């Protein structure tokens, strides 16, 4: 059990938490945060797993950098859409009840 494998396992756990949040939470910002947690988990696996077998490897780090840029772009787009959606409809979830159980935006 190397420390790299530990990273990969932690990444798998984060993925599970993020997936749960993405599917079960209704508030859109929480869903977005869950997506980011899941993304971090994937990045941890991506860096940890290859190095566990073959030592330091620059390629996954380059990939994760690109992945982070993509995730930021996606998050920015989602935030803009959610904000606009809240201004137009006053709702913070997709299900259709006015306002959400948490009451208003976070």
């Amino acid at each position: 059990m190397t420390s790299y494998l530990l990273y990969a396992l932690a990444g798998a756990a984060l993925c599970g938490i993020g997936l749960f949040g993405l599917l079960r939470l209704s508030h859109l910002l929480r869903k977005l945060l869950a997506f980011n947690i899941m993304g971090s988990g994937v990045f941890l696996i991506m860096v940890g797993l290859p190095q566990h077998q073959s030592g330091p490897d620059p390629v996954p780090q380059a990939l994760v950098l690109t992945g982070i840029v993509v995730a930021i772009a996606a998050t920015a787009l989602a935030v803009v859409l959610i904000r606009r959606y809240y201004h137009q409809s006053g709702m913070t979830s997709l299900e259709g009840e006015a306002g959400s159980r948490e009451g208003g935006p976070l």
Partner: protein
Amino acid sequence: MTLWLMAGLLFTPLAWAVLTLLTDFVWGRRVTWVGILVQVLVSLGLWLTVAQHGGFYYDLGGWGAPLGIELRVDGLAVTFVLLTAAVASACGLHAGVYIDQHKPWHRYFWPLFWFLWSGLNAVWLGGDLFNLYVGLELISLSAVGLVALGGNANALRASIRYLLAALLGSLAYLLGVALIYGQFGTLSIAGVVAWLDNHSAPAGPGLALALMITGLALKTALFPLHRWLPPAHGIAKSPVSALLSALVVKASFYIAARLWLAFGESLGSLAAAQMVGLLGGAAVVWGSWLACKQAQLKQVVAYSSVAQIGYLFLLFPLTYSVSESVSLQAQQGITLQVISHALAKAAMFLAAGNLILSVGSSRIDALAGVSRFLPFSLFSFGLAGVSLMSLPPSGGFAAKWLLLQASLGSGQWWWALVLLAGGLLSAAYLFRIYRASFAENPETDQFFHPSKSLEIIPMVLAVMALGLGFVSEQVLSVMALPFAEEGAP
């Protein structure tokens, strides 16, 4: 020469996206006309190059894998580049007239359109798993932006739902890529295949393949993961719906198909192949059934996309542990199905947009009497429907014929039932629309007449979908163009 072609295919759409970001709608349209011309010429040039010299690998900017971007140009990629050039040009020209230029946010249509096109070209040509991911994300983000262009709460709700589904799908795919790299130490599809040829298949990467295919199936809206598609495709502006249905869902399917054809034999299993095929069959029946029940015209067309996507996934069982000739037949059938559906569905959405524009309502029962006033658009809609119902001599018929032969040739007769049921059900939901439009309604006598160019573009696409059946041999010969240098790069 190759350098210029590659720059034309990948760099110019990005450059045009930035250029149109700086202009207003009208100038964006002019700039786009030039861009479309460039794209069509470059796509034809790529076809000529591959036809003369065969397919090749190309390192973008001279940087080799794994850090550089490696492109794989083969017959199949050329087929899809040409298809994209045809459909996206038509949608771009249609959108220039169709989209209301007086709303200030509509000028963002052009940058999103060009980002989408560059993402599509990147996916068709991508040779390694990670750059396919980047291309997919580029496509998804610009597609979501295009859906949100409607601006009202319903459009935003549909686009957020679409965004969340697309992001989840991409993460599942990326997780699979991470596992593949952890196992094989390479991202190139050809590299993984070479590794698998020399070693016995380990147990772990089956999970990676399953994750990637599941993520891509979510992005392609395979039943039962299709729930995000009808709202997004139904509410978007008609040229956007046409782009999404014709090209965007095909991009994720294309990757899934490439992965399955490369790794399926060694990493997949018979149960998985049959399972995916079963979901595809269920999508055909369930999507068509729901299409019959919709009250809105564009929702019918959107659910019809769910059904037509189902056919594509018959590729999985029809190419798993069957003879070479059956597998080839299935691949050709699926390629024809992708092309004919792309042309027919783009024509159908554009024609539906004209019909809605003309009667001022998106409900089917509002179409009463439209057959007297807008026969040309209705005729395009009908011709596209002939291909969707897969009647001869359309492209849809040629595709279903090949699939039928492949399913009987491999002894999997049950897929023939899916093909039969899908054809009958699609006739049912299309005739519902024809019946409504031929009904006479004495109360409504006011119809808006869209301009001629709006009516001609869907007609051209519909005729292409119909004529595909006559030239299917020639189209398939592009796909079968040989590869110049065999083996991994």
